């Protein structure tokens, strides 16, 4: 595997991890909001 290919793999992995992190963060916010909506309702 060439260094370029290795770089590409690392970059893609970093992007995927970042996207997954944002999704998880979004779920935290969503569940928090749902919990409040349920308590208030």
């Amino acid at each position, binding site marked *: 595997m060439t260094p370029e290919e290795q770089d*590409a*793999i690392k*970059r*893609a*992995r970093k*992007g*995927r991890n*970042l*996207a*997954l992190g944002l999704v998880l963060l979004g779920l935290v916010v*969503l569940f928090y*909001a*749902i919990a*409040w*909506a*349920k308590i*208030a*309702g």
Partner: protein
Amino acid sequence: MPTTVTSTTAPSEWRDYYALTKPRVMSLVVFTGLCGLLAAPGHINPVLGFTAVLCIALGAGGAGALNQWWEADLDARMKRTAKRPLPLGRMTRTSARDFGVALSVGSVLIMGLAVNWLSAIVLAVSILYYAVVYTIWLKPRTPQNIVIGGGAGAFPPLIGWIAVTGHITWMPVLLFLIIFMWTPPHFWALALFVQSDYAKAGIPMMPVVAGEKSTRRQILAYAVILLVVSLVPWWIGGTGAIYGVTALALSAAFVALCLPVASRLAGQGDTMKPEKRLFAYSVLYLFALFAALVVDRVVLGQGTSA
């Protein structure tokens, strides 16, 4: 099931997973789902309403990913779909399958826990319907595949409505039927003017199997049924006159645009103007009809749960 395994040639990026969810289909799903939710009688907490639409979108994305997991080999043989992540070998098929299952299961669970379990069940049924009944079972077997596939696209307003009311009544079922009847003329108009390679991929599309003439006749038949079905919500008192009159005008125009399509045959070097016009109008039609439904509800406040 298809057996060829494509090897991974490039590392998959988050965009590849995003592409698996068929974002363009999702925009129509979100719109009709939201309209079902807004047109339903009763109130839903905005956060829970947002959650419901989000779950409908995620479920559709999951079903789209499962569809591409199953059809990877087929997609590779058609120009329109050859650039999807799986045919390009940008991810393994297992990743696509797991992603689709995760989105599907996740969206159903969140819907059930946050909104209500009836809408979660209908969401699950819609995903299974698209991924299994349509994609795996009937699409490769019958020229009625578009009619059946239309059923999958017809679920979102039904689910949005049930998210608010918690039960199934005639009105959400009618919204389902409207999209169900709308899909065949919408898609077949496109199939008539797009040189597609479905035949090459072995998918029995109506114009290929039953011929152009029969397809054109069926387009008109569905448009006439659509005209009637689109007016039923008004007749049964589920909506007011704003929706009723708008639906009458929109559906009459739909039938009028189908008439030239039904009564001609394409010649050599045909520009296919009537078919293109019908297709463009069909998209506008659905947006306008559902918008009218919401406006009717907001302005007249009518809408028994009939």
